[in-house]
């Protein structure tokens, strides 16, 4: 880690420590705090200057930090990533914005060939403290290439770290922690949740970056106090935009007397599955939820690891609720394509009935 800035205040005054923020505003404030804390932090991307990015995540940053620190780059993702590598070698900490998930691929070569491997190739002499921010996932009624979930490609690539935030507090803190990290971090932002609000404490990070978090356990759920006997409980694991779906499913299941534990992965590479194993040992059942296609994916990896670590605790096979193994469909079909409350509960029912 670079200079520990984990507990720095988001702005200055203590009285505004807890604020209700959207994910988008929290990211914006997190980026601002990182730029204030370290003059080597740069923003690079298409339309991130005057426009503030198409989602306004960098709103106001160019105005306050200047064109040398917030770069409206030419329109080329390979250029953005490739030059960020050079800047990082030179001592900067670039934060690249990819406008939409589907536009990361012109930069894919630079990411897998240089970003991921340089530290290894130079035996640690070159560090690459860069962040690649990617608004990802569907549900916004967009045209092609604007709704994809490409995270597994990067989790599959050694040398990259991959995280995803699901709420404003994590948005605010995780982006700063990612910028502080000396390894390159792919930072996946749940674009359809950008405008969801929650209180954020800007004085203290809730925990380290590369840890998953238990959001709901059987004992502290709505019908607290009831036992979690087998057949009545299951574990839900998700990340990013699917956390909202998992929590809604847990609330709905609680009404029917089923206890669902919910774990937000937060880090997709390296995976932090300890809390998942603990939960599965309690519930005996696991449903993994992701918008990404299922073949050879993060959800496959979780299923493989859980069956290996929790083999004797499992009462049912690990089930997955994911996007289908097709291109992302025309948006009128995305409701069918995306995992929703019903599909998650259906999988829970199947698991319970196994």
């Amino acid at each position: 880690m670079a200079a520990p800035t984990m507990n720095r205040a988001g702005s200055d005054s203590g009285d505004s420590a807890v604020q209700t923020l959207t994910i988008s505003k929290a990211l914006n404030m997190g980026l601002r705090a990182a730029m204030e804390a370290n003059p080597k932090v740069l923003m690079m991307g298409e339309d991130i200057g005057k426009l503030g990015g198409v989602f306004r995540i960098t709103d106001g940053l160019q105005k306050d930090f200047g064109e040398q620190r917030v770069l409206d780059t030419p329109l080329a993702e390979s250029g953005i990533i490739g030059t960020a590598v050079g800047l990082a070698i030179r001592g900067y900490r670039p934060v690249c914005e990819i406008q939409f998930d589907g536009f990361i691929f012109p930069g894919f070569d630079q990411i897998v060939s240089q970003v991921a491997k340089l530290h290894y190739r130079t035996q640690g002499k070159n560090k690459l403290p860069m962040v690649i921010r990617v608004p990802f996932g569907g549900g916004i009624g967009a045209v092609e290439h604007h709704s994809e979930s490409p995270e597994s490609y990067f989790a599959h690539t050694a040398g990259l770290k991959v995280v995803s935030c699901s709420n404003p507090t994590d948005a605010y803190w995780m982006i700063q922690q990612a910028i502080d990290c000396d390894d390159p971090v792919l930072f996946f932002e749940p674009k359809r949740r950008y405008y969801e609000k929650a209180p954020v404490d800007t004085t203290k990070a809730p925990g380290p970056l590369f840890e998953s978090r238990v959001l709901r356990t059987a004992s502290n759920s709505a019908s607290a106090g009831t036992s979690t006997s087998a057949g009545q409980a299951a574990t839900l694991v998700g990340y990013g935009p699917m956390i909202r779906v998992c929590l809604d499913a847990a609330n709905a299941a609680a009404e029917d007397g089923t206890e669902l534990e919910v774990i937000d992965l937060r880090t997709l590479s390296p995976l932090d599955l300890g809390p998942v194993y603990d939960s599965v040992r309690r519930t005996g059942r696991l449903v993994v939820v992701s918008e990404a296609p299922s073949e050879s994916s993060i959800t496959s990896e979780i299923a493989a690891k859980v069956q290996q670590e929790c083999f004797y605790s499992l009462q049912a096979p690990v089930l997955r609720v994911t996007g289908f193994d097709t291109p992302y469909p025309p948006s009128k079909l995305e409701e069918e394509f995306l995992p929703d409350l019903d599909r998650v509960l259906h999988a829970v029912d199947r698991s319970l009935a196994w």
Partner: protein
Amino acid sequence: MSSPEQWTHPEPASAPAATAAKPTAEQVIAGLRATDQGDVNLVQLLTPEGERVQHPDFDIDITAEELRGLYRDMVLIRRVDREANALQRKGQLGIWVPLLGQEAAQIGAGRAMRPDDMAFPSYREHGIAWTRGIHPTDLLGIFRGTDMGSWDPVEHKFHPYTIVIGNQVLNATGYAMGQKFDGKVGDADGEATMCFFGDGATSQGDVHEGFVWAAVYDAPLVFFCQNNQWAISEPTERQSRLPLYQRARGYGFPGIRVDGNDVLATLAVTRWALEECRQGNGPILIEAFTYRMDAHTTSDDPSRYRLSDELELWKLKDPIERVKVHLVKQQWADSAFFESIEQESEALAVELREFCVNMPDPPPERIFANVYAEGNPVLEAQRDEFLAYVEGFAGGEH
């Protein structure tokens, strides 16, 4: 007509680009930015005032009927564009990508093509689509979210819209290489390909690679860059120090800048370029100098990054108005003609509206259809499982 060799060595009109100063704020406001500085090489045949002017290398014989046809094309496609924009505002489309201001560039280029030529559009090419015989209703599904383009790209020789900036340029290059390998190049009956992209796209590696490939394989390809001055919020000088058409020189083929708001000049220059390609003298780059008069898309807010003065200036260079003025001056059209075009465009708008609101949603099985040419048993199992699940809802079992 001049030989391509001559066009490979145009002298830059002004000071070497490497020393070109950044435009001042006033220049930006006036729409006179670095890419337009002192450049006398803009081909124009019809001034914004509707005056026919001569150009030493390009001229065009145009009949009254032909010019009325071009006028009609532009009015109708503008009406389609405005109607689709309104349909988005009413929630009938998820998004719309306006072509407002680029009618002459697209109709001029599109009408220069022959049925056997192939076209690779980006996503704003509604005017090109029109000239390829695609009914505007076929564009709506992309923006309503029911499909990804419903025309047959083989039949119309009009590739699907490509949204990933620059991708189609390499695809077009390969197609043109195929035309050459098939022996379709070498005389006046030859085939050619046109590829459409924006000023922003010229920064993408794919576009540069397309330039290299097309040059190395003498591909019969016209690179048609619509420089509408903006790539969302970034002005063209974010992408280049040099006027874009001058880039061609570095790759070894001709580059020409045409007034993209002048349908006659665009038609003349594109015809010439296609003819050169048919004969085997391709590729050629055309930069159509024009202006995006509306937002980037209906999701965009241009007031955040450009001044309305710029728009006001470009309104004086409107591509349709100058043709109208010329038709009237020449007494090539009377009020009855203009009235009939007005009525036709109104009828087209009604048709578009009715078609749009009645478009059915696609069935769930469409998600899984046509992923592979030869099928995939794993995917088919996934499809069957999902359809059974959906069926369960329909039967009220869940």
